[in-house]
């Protein structure tokens, strides 16, 4: 098992915390947005951008880069904040989220913002795009890897399973999907809305290599992401068990914070909890 340098882990943890502060501030300033699913996704996205992916922020269109798609596009504040911390866009620009004319649209626009690889927002389409990108790598004899994060609500979408079937049918092995398994969707717990378990068995039955991890533990995340590059002949699924709203006490596990901005008082409390300045 890979052993990770303590300094690396604590560097990633600091980044994750910083990104949580950005996310809460951005959504507060925008007055609308989706804090819950942004906050549950932070560690996986940070691990990808700050350690795993082969990318160059100065060359966002470099043909050999690894790709990341946020299929659950409503979680884009985390993506934008990560791109900013990585140097794709100025950090100051984050506060323009959802404002008229901003490159930071309410749902990601690949033609507007550098580093955004796919326009998403209508749930359930990102994994199919990921399959397409992975197939393109094969055609072009390129070695890049494609990562797609999907929400557990997107497991309701028929298209997710169409993509799952296609990826394994085409033996796409340069593709890793990560399910942000935060157990909640818009109307309530996924278990109440549409049962998706036994989840790992379903994906295995579709021909995928499946790993389950704690989606807030960097060691777990790095191990799973790195291992997924070695799996040959089939696509990889990582079920990342997460907590919706992670890091802000009153947002944690709260359906109500799926899609609303914090009030001023809530914002101040969140920043205090995250050790930031309101």
């Amino acid at each position, binding site marked *: 098992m890979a052993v990770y340098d303590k300094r690396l882990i604590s560097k990633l943890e600091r980044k994750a915390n910083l990104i949580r502060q950005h996310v809460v501030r951005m959504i507060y300033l925008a007055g*609308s947005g989706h804090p819950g699913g942004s906050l549950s996704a932070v560690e996986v996205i940070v691990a990808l951008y700050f350690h795993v992916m082969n990318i160059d922020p100065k060359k966002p269109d470099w043909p050999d880069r690894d790709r990341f798609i946020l299929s659950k596009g409503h979680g884009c504040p985390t993506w934008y904040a990560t791109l900013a911390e990585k140097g794709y866009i100025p950090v100051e620009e984050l506060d323009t989220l*959802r404002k*008229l004319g901003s490159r930071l649209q*309410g749902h990601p626009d690949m033609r507007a913002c550098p580093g955004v690889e796919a326009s998403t927002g*209508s749930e359930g389409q990102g994994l199919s795009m990921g399959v397409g990108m992975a197939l393109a790598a094969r055609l072009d004899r390129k070695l890049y890897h494609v990562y797609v994060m999907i929400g557990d609500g997107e497991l309701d979408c028929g298209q997710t399973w169409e993509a799952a079937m296609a990826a394994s049918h085409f033996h796409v092995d340069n593709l890793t999907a990560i399910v942000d398994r935060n157990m909640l*969707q818009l109307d309530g717990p*996924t278990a109440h*809305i549409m049962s998706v378990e036994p989840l790992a068995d379903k994906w295995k039955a579709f021909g995928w290599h499946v790993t389950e991890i704690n989606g807030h533990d960097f060691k777990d995340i790095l191990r799973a992401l790195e291992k997924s590059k070695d799996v040959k002949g089939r696509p990889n699924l990582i079920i990342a068990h997460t907590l919706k709203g992670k890091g802000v006490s009153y947002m944690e596990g709260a359906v109500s914070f799926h899609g609303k901005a914090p009030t001023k008082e809530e914002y101040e409390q969140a920043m205090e909890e995250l050790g930031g300045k309101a």
Partner: protein
Amino acid sequence: MNLKDFKLESQREYWAKALVELGKKRKDIVVLSADLSSSVKTSLFAKDFPERHFNVGIAEQNMMSIAAGLAACGKTAFASTFAAFGTGRVYDQIRQSIAYPKLNVKIIATHAGITVGGDGATHQIVEDLALMRALPNMTVIVPADAPETYRAIKTVADYVGPVYVRMGRANIPTITNSKGKFKIGKATLLKDGDDVCLIGTGIMVSRCMLAAHELKKHKISARVINLSTIKPIDTKTIVKAARETGGVVTAEEHSSIVGMGSAVAMCLVENAHVPMKRVGIPDVFGQSGDSDELMEKYGLTAENIIEAAHDVLGRKGR
């Protein structure tokens, strides 16, 4: 007169109120949601009639065809979600399983148009009327305000066959004061006038009223028509207004190349040749922003209607 002079009310609340009342009276009414029941307010029906509400999760295609199955067995099925996901995403399911067999499914769409605001283009469908208008057997209704939404839903429940009802997210000005039954296919006269006719649909009807009020200050008498059924279109009222006023302006919170304005244009081309101007969203996707800002950015204000009216008036004499 100002937008602030009107009471702002939520179409979604009125639709849900009508739905719950219908549910009490009629056991054949069933409701389907796709993980947006709290946003589209079908959650209120679900609370009172849990056994007649089906939340299928984020699976709109599935929702439409399940609704078709229920309707095929005698149910009156109301399937509700955001307009983007209740039209474009499920066009083929609507076409094949609902419109073609003429099944009794009501598609109740909220969050249409750019007034969605911050969510941006992915959620701001501006071409849903085009899609629904194009379908044979489909009735297309765009209520002008919350009370009209309530009346329309009651009528729609009695009508047998596929219907698309479009509403927005925002609370909008209440401008209709009609009582009694909403009549499918009947445009209503809100203000008489004989210099120019302003035909609005949805949220733009209120802007037409404001525009008419402003025009009056310049001695221009504008007729205002609320075209709340886009299909079947009220050719008679439109043609009469065109002939009597000699010029028409249409206004819609929708793409101007494929929506209500084009439906009216077709009607005029075949029946009354008068100058006409369409106010609507140009041929572009929307973007994130505050809804009022977006209405301005995309040319959907009373001023835009006034400008269009002057343009039409200028061409009238020629």
